[in-house]
């Protein structure tokens, strides 16, 4: 079996007594598009910042391409691209100056050509001062700088903030295309729909701990179902306080919906004791799955 491109073992980070992340374990294989989901403050950026050696862990280890993220940081970064969630800018530089500055850190042949190609794709005006750019255009600059050196691994921290839907779609297509060429993508976001669109595997982080690590499809296909029922008369919500049923939400008049994890025959058997007008059993959306794991 090949070495995982990212290998995180028992990684913890505390800010004094405050928790950043706690005993995080994660392995990401080369060639994956991996989603890292969690609400703000869950520990996504902390994990990424440790991987990029911006902050130091208080416990555990992290490796990229088999190399230690602290000791071998320079070697690692030669092959890693990074898009920060909210990076500032060298405001006195114009876009071309900034991208040239970035590319000079790498041994890249035909760097100017690469700058021109990517800037054209994202419709970037190379002569504009970075300070004058809108948030969306700054994000485009950030995307371009991350891809200049054709990295083997791309780490994205909330990368779509500020991008309009058209640019998002161009960006996602570019990511898919780079992934087909072999680039591994680590995609951190709290927007589940974009993770769903792009990623094959996902880790859910909650309060600094990984609470679920699954294929997107497996996650969907797990026993978790969304059930909406309409009865011919009013039923008490408390009647559904049984194991496996969660988030019971009353609907209009005699209907309600809930999430159910367990044997589907059991719930059908309970429901059969009532006069049902309508019953819908469906796959929950990723948002609902996420809320299920997050709330539990």
């Amino acid at each position: 079996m090949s070495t995982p491109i990212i290998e995180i073992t028992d990684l913890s980070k505390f800010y004094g007594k405050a928790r950043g992340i706690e005993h995080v374990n994660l392995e990401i294989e080369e060639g994956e598009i991996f989603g890292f989901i969690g609400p703000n403050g869950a520990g996504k950026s902390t994990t990424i910042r440790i991987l990029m050696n911006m902050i130091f862990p208080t416990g555990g280890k992290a490796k990229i391409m088999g190399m230690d993220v602290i000791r071998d940081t320079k070697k690692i970064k030669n092959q890693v691209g990074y898009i920060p969630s909210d990076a500032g800018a060298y405001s006195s530089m114009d876009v071309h100056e900034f991208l040239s500055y970035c590319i000079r850190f790498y041994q890249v042949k035909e760097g100017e050509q690469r700058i021109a190609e990517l800037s054209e794709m994202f419709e970037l005006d190379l002569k504009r001062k970075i300070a004058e750019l809108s948030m969306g255009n700054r994000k485009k600059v950030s995307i371009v700088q991350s891809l200049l050196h054709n990295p083997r691994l791309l780490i994205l921290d909330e990368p779509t903030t500020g991008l309009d839907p058209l640019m998002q779609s161009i960006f996602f297509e570019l990511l898919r295309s780079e992934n087909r060429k072999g680039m591994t993508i680590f995609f951190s976001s709290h927007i589940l729909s974009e993770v769903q669109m792009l990623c094959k595997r996902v880790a859910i982080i909650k309060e600094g701990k990984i609470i679920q690590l699954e294929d997107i499809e497996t996650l969907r296909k797990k026993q978790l179902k969304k059930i909406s029922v309409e009865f011919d008369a009013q039923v008490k919500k408390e009647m559904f306080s049984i194991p496996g049923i969660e988030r019971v939400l009353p609907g209009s008049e005699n209907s309600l919906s809930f999430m159910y994890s367990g044997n589907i025959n059991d719930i059908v058997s309970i429901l059969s004791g009532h006069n049902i007008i309508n019953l819908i059993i469906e796959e929950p959306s990723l948002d609902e799955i996420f809320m299920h794991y997050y709330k539990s």
Partner: protein
Amino acid sequence: MNHNLFLKEMKRNAFSLMVWMTIITLFISGTMALYSTFLENQSKILGMMSIIPKEALQFKGISNFDDMLSVLGFYSVNNVIYMMVLGSIFAIVLSSNILLKEEYNKTAEYLLTRPITRSEIFFSKLAVIFINVFLLNFVTALAGFISMELVKNGPFSIRAFLILSLYTLLLNFLFGAVGLFMSTLVKRGKPITTFSIGLVLIFYFIYTLSKITAGASRIGYLSPYRFADTNAINPAYSIDIWHLAYFIGISLLLIGISYRLYKRKDIYT
């Protein structure tokens, strides 16, 4: 050291360096242009100074009026504030911001994710501090030297001038090291420019206070200014090896600690 980062930082600081060089050079040459007038009116000035309290003159760096009659004495008394105070402010502002600005401008996420080590970042930026402080000192000292050559009424000791310039340079370097050290202690990248300038002025105040207050002479040792001897017209004026060791030792110690701290610093943006 990383050349790409070094060149970018040199370029980034070039304008500021030019402004500081111009201002200090103008101050020095402007003051030295008054030397001839000062000599012509020395009796009137002496009369005026006799009514000023001795402490006030000492605060200005004048312990003996005759010291100011020679061109080098006039230069050292009048220009110490420009070279030693303004130069130190330049050094501390530059050094306290050079690492920290990557944090508060949120550009650290671009710099630290390049194939560059913390050591390379530190030493590239340290080199920028050294070169900027050296260039400022070189140009302003040259301006001082040319001004003295133009207005002098007799020879002056070039050796003494060079020693005075060396003390100024070492003092500026030391404040550069202080600024760098302070910046590595700051968490979550907040600018410390005002505090840095205040620190230079406090040290200068402590030094002058120690000179004018007999009972407070010992507190002068708390200030680096105490170790930068400006009495250039004293025939015995020379480099004090202990003072030299003080400047070099403290600067190296602060740089060494700063390096250790920066290598393990959590950097947030």
